[in-house]
C-alpha cells in the first residue's frame, strides 16, 4: 500500500501541474473584471453587513489509513463550526469524502450536502458539483459566507490544513502568488487588488481599459462560478496529493512497526522453544537415570526416548 500510494502521488502531482495554468489565468481574468466599477456590487464581492449563515466546505478522503490526514481537516472544520456557533452564527458543513461525511453524521452535526467517491481522483465535474451545492443557496441569500477547508500539498514531507474564504470573495488575484504559482505573466500586477483587499484598485500602477462583451456584470455572473470551480478543483487536487502522501507515510510507519514487532516476537518464540527443549532433555535424562538406579533394563526404552526427543527438537 505504501508503494501504491507512492505511485499515486506522482499522478496527483501531475494533475495539480496540469490544472495550474487554468486556475492562474482564471485568477487574472477575474482580477481584470473585478477591477470595473460595477463589479463591486456583485453579490460575490459584496460582503453582507452581518454574517449569519455560514457553510464550511471541507475536503476529506473516502478511505482511511492515511495517518492524520482526515482527522486534521475534520478537527479544523469542527473548530470553525464551534467558533461560528459561539458567535451566534448558523453553520453547516458541505463535505467531500466519505470519511468527513461519516464523521459529521455520527456526531449529528449539520450537513448541508455531501459528495463521496471522488477524493483520490477529483475531476473538474466533481468541483462543479461541489460548487453547485453552495452556489444556489448563496445566490438566494440563504448563505452569507462559504469557507473552504482543505489540505495544501507543500511537498512530500509537508501538507498543511488550510482555511480559505470562497465567498464573498475578498481578493481574487493575490491567491495565485500566495500559493506559489507563477504569477501568470506581468499582467497579474495590473489586476490591482494586489495588497489592498478593500481598496478596489486604488493602488494599481497602470490600468487597462478592457472592452467587455457582454457587460462586465453579465460576464461576472458567468465567470465567478467558474472561478470558484477552478479554486475548488485546485483545492481538491492538492488534497488528493496530500492524502496519498499521508497514506504513504502512514503505511511506511506501519510496515516499519510490523517489522520491529516481527523481530521481537521471533526472539520471544525462539527463547520459548529453546526452553521447552531444554526442559524435555532434562526430564528424559532424569527419567533414564531413575530407571537405571532402580536396576531396570533400560536399553530399548532409553533409545526410544532419545530418538523421539531428537525428532521433536
Amino acid at each position, binding site marked *: 500500500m505504501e508503494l501504491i500510494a507512492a505511485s499515486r502521488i506522482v499522478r496527483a502531482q501531475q*494533475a495539480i501541474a*496540469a*490544472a495550474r*495554468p*487554468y*486556475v492562474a*489565468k*482564471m485568477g*487574472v*481574468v477575474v482580477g*481584470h*473584471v473585478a477591477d470595473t466599477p460595477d463589479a463591486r456590487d456583485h453579490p460575490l464581492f459584496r460582503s453582507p453587513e452581518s454574517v449569519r449563515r455560514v457553510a464550511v466546505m471541507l475536503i476529506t478522503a473516502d478511505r482511511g489509513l492515511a495517518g492524520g490526514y482526515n482527522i486534521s481537516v475534520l478537527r479544523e472544520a469542527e473548530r470553525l463550526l464551534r467558533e461560528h456557533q459561539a458567535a451566534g452564527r448558523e453553520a453547516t458543513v458541505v463535505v467531500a469524502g466519505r470519511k468527513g461525511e461519516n464523521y459529521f453524521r455520527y456526531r449529528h452535526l449539520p450537513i448541508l450536502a455531501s459528495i463521496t467517491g471522488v477524493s483520490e481522483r477529483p475531476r*473538474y465535474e466533481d*468541483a*462543479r458539483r461541489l460548487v453547485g451545492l453552495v452556489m444556489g443557496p448563496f445566490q438566494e441569500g440563504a448563505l452569507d459566507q462559504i469557507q473552504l477547508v482543505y489540505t495544501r500539498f507543500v511537498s512530500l514531507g509537508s501538507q498543511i490544513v488550510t482555511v480559505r474564504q470562497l465567498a464573498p470573495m475578498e481578493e481574487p488575484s493575490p491567491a495565485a502568488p500566495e500559493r506559489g504559482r507563477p504569477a501568470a*505573466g*506581468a*499582467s497579474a500586477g495590473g489586476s490591482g487588488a494586489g495588497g489592498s483587499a478593500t481598496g478596489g484598485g486604488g493602488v494599481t500602477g497602470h490600468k*487597462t*481599459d*478592457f*472592452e*467587455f*462583451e*457582454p457587460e*462586465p456584470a*453579465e*460576464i461576472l455572473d*458567468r*465567470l465567478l462560478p*467558474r472561478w470558484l*470551480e*477552478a479554486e475548488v*478543483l485546485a483545492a481538491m487536487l492538492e488534497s488528493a496529493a496530500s492524502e496519498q502522501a499521508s497514506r504513504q507515510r502512514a503505511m511506511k510507519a506501519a510496515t516499519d512497526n510490523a517489522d520491529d514487532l516481527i523481530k521481537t516476537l521471533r526472539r520471544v518464540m525462539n527463547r520459548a522453544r529453546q526452553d521447552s527443549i531444554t526442559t524435555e532433555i532434562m526430564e528424559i535424562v532424569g527419567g533414564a537415570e531413575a530407571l537405571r538406579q532402580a536396576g531396570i533394563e533400560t536399553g530399548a526404552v532409553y533409545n526410544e526416548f532419545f530418538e523421539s526427543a531428537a525428532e521433536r527438537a
Partner: protein
Amino acid sequence: MATTQFELVTPTRTLFSGAAEMVVCRTVTGEIAFLANHMPYIGALDTSVVRVVGPVGAREGTTEPDVRLAVHGGFVEVKDNEVVMLADIAELASEIDVPRARRAYDAANQALSAAGGGMPDPQVEAALRRAQTRLEAAQA
C-alpha cells in the same frame, strides 16, 4: 505577417499555445476575430468552434494549416497581444470522436422532435449544440 500569441487552457491541460495570425471565435454576443495587437478585450465564449488561422509551426517562420477547436463555453481575454481562452471543456478537432458526436447529435435531435411542440428541454438543446459544434469543428 504580424502574429498574436494564443493560448487555450482547460482545467486538465493546455490545448493550444503558440503564435497565430488570427483567432476567430464566437462570444455570446457574436463572432469576433482577433488579429495582432487587438485592443484589450474580455468576453464570454459561446459553445462554438474556435479557428486558429495561420498558426506558426514548431519550425521558425513556417505556417501550418488552420487549427480548429470545439469550445464549450468559457472566456476570452485579450491583452498585450496575447489571446487567452479559458474553457472548462474544449477539444482539438483532430481528437473529436466523430461517430460518437454524430450519435449524440441524432439522439438529441430525436429527443427534441419527440418533445414536439412543447418547451424544449434546455439540457437536450445544449447537448445538441455541443454535438453540432463538435461535428462542425471536425468538419464531418
